[in-house]
């Protein structure tokens, strides 16, 4: 068997099959061609439909995206607006708070000043009242009874407190103490009682009697713990201990001030003595 012989053997069936195909009918060919065209049309139609769907979807997506973008922009604007409003509001609130704080401080200061003035006015009023009570009644017939001198009236609490303050300012501790002491004895329920006791302590301090001053400050805290004088009195006691070198005892009192009277100025001042040293 040569190679040429082998090739002849292979080609023979192929030629036979081709000849067989040529023998298929024309009708069959047309059917196949029709099928092919139908398939192609169907394919085109499907393609076209798909394309239409895609573009519709794209339009729809674009529209949705545009809408979303619009919404986002609007939301962004709203957020920005809200943010600006919040910032402005925060600024306003902060400013208002600062104003309120400043006004509070001013009110506190003015209250202090007013209290002093009111105190002086009260003392004046009491003085006037005493003068009226001791003066003879106008228009009354001058007889043996009316000519008799009226009983001397005692000064009121405001007057006594004013006297004590004046004496303290003049540096006369003993006189100041006697005025404050009279107030405490005669008007123990007066709203000036805590101030009078504090004044006693101040007078002792002015006289150099530290032990008596400490005792009086202690009484202010014990008897009038809700008064404005209490934190200051406690602060005075703590400071006296600190100056005397009793650091631990002083720190304990400073802590008490911070715990019991956290809003007081004494508490703010006490903070520097209980924790780490504060720099300005």
């Amino acid at each position, binding site marked *: 068997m040569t190679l040429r012989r082998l090739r002849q053997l292979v080609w023979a069936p192929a030629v036979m099959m081709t000849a067989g195909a040529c023998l298929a009918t024309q009708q069959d060919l047309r059917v196949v061609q029709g099928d092919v065209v139908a398939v192609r049309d169907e394919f085109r139609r499907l393609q076209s439909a798909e394309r239409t769907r895609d573009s519709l979807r794209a339009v729809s997506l674009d529209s949705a995206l545009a809408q979303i973008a619009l919404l986002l922009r609007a939301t962004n604007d709203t957020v920005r607006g809200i943010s600006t409003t919040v910032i402005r509001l925060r600024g306003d609130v902060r400013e208002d708070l600062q104003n309120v704080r400043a006004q509070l401080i001013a009110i506190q200061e003015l209250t202090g000043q007013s209290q002093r003035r009111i105190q002086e006015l009260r003392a004046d009023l009491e003085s006037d009242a005493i003068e009226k009570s001791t003066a003879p009644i106008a228009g009354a017939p001058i007889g043996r009874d009316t000519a008799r001198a009226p009983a001397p009236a005692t000064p009121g609490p405001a007057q006594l407190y004013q006297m004590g303050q004046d004496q303290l300012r003049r540096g006369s501790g003993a006189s100041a103490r006697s005025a404050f002491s009279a107030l405490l004895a005669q008007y123990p329920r007066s709203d000036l009682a805590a101030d009078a006791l504090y004044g006693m302590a101040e007078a002792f301090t002015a006289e150099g009697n530290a032990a008596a001053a400490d005792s009086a400050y202690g009484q202010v805290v014990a008897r009038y713990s809700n008064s404005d004088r209490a934190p200051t009195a406690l*602060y005075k006691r703590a400071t006296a201990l600190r100056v005397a070198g009793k650091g631990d005892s002083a720190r304990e009192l400073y802590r008490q001030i911070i715990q019991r009277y956290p809003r007081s100025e004494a508490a703010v001042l006490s903070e520097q003595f209980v924790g780490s040293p504060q720099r300005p």
Partner: protein
Amino acid sequence: MSHVSSWSRGILVTVIGMTLTIATVPCRLHAQEPGVRIGLTYAPGMQPGVYLLPVGGADGDSVRLIIARDLEFGHRLTVISPDADRGAPTGRLNYPLYARLGAAGVVQVVLQADGSALVTLHDVVAAQAQETRRFALPGPRLSPAWRLAVHGIADVIEEWVTGTRGIAATRVLFVRSGALWQIDSDGANEQPVPGVGAALGPAWHPDGRSIAFARMRDDGTSVVVHELASGEERRVRTGAPLSLSPAFSPDGKWLAFAAGESGTDLYVVPVGAWEESPLRVTVGRGSTNAQPTFAPDGRRIAFTSSRLGRNEIYLTDADGANPELLTSTALTDAPYRADPAWSPDGRFVAFSTQIDGRFQIATISLRDRAVRQYTTEGINEDPSWAPDGRHLVFTSSRTGTRQLWVLDIESGRVRQLTRGAPARMGAWSPRLLSVP
């Protein structure tokens, strides 16, 4: 008619009052003898005549001129000073003659060969020498130290006559062109403080040997304590970008100052313990609290605060307790008050107050809060007390430029202290000589 009679009654009352005063008030010019004394008296408001005899020697005229001027500036004595060419008297003094000239005392200064001065005060009424003392005059002649010693003589003479030491042997620190300067109380020896440079708000230590001031830095100000003799400096460590307006306590143991950033509070630190943490004195909550000045007993501090929204003067205990408003009078006006200075006698706080848009010098009584205004002309501020509690140095623009002036609060008289380039922020020293 009634006017005449009341006027006559007034004169009569005055004469009787003066007679009684002369008879009852102890006389300092007389020798201290027991029993009844009759003679001239010194009382506030009176200015006894003192005859200042010519002084011999090369520097005699300078000595006499300095003493005469010091006594005049003290406002307690009337100086009767004859022409220098009369020469120094020799032999016994003619007391009746001086009495006729209106002198209650005669001051005799004799310069000694060793450079010292022998000073005698003669009592004209008693016709005898009352006081005699020798004073050393350190060389070189006419130097600042020599002049200071002569000022010391004037102060002692004033004390002999009135009982109150004079204020001539003092100096005033001030700020000129941003630098720290000093000047003698009589306006002599105007010169920069060596080694200090730029400074603000100077203050004297009570011993007169060191000063404190605020120094400008690139990032704020710091408080510096400066030894005058050695030039040694210590910066007070506050940790705050702004530290200013230092003031020493009268016992010299504490230094108060303002420190902070957006607002300032007052702090105190022990003198010498500059590394220690300062103690807080005020709770300003963001307001400005500055310009501390101690009471003479050191127990209270006056300071400026804006905690009410406008500057006012406040008082507080030195430990920070009991802060109170000192100066506010009405809520309707909106004045600005600053520069508090507590008087050495403790009775007043001097301050600057805005009146019709201009600052004026005023004092407020610590006893009854009565305010008294002393100036009206120009802008007047920065009061600082002399050690006698009677004189104030202050800045005034009354001549067109800011200069230092001295005010006598009893008589209201003023004199110009500095001249030339503008000067401000005067700080009066303590007495710089410890004459026994």
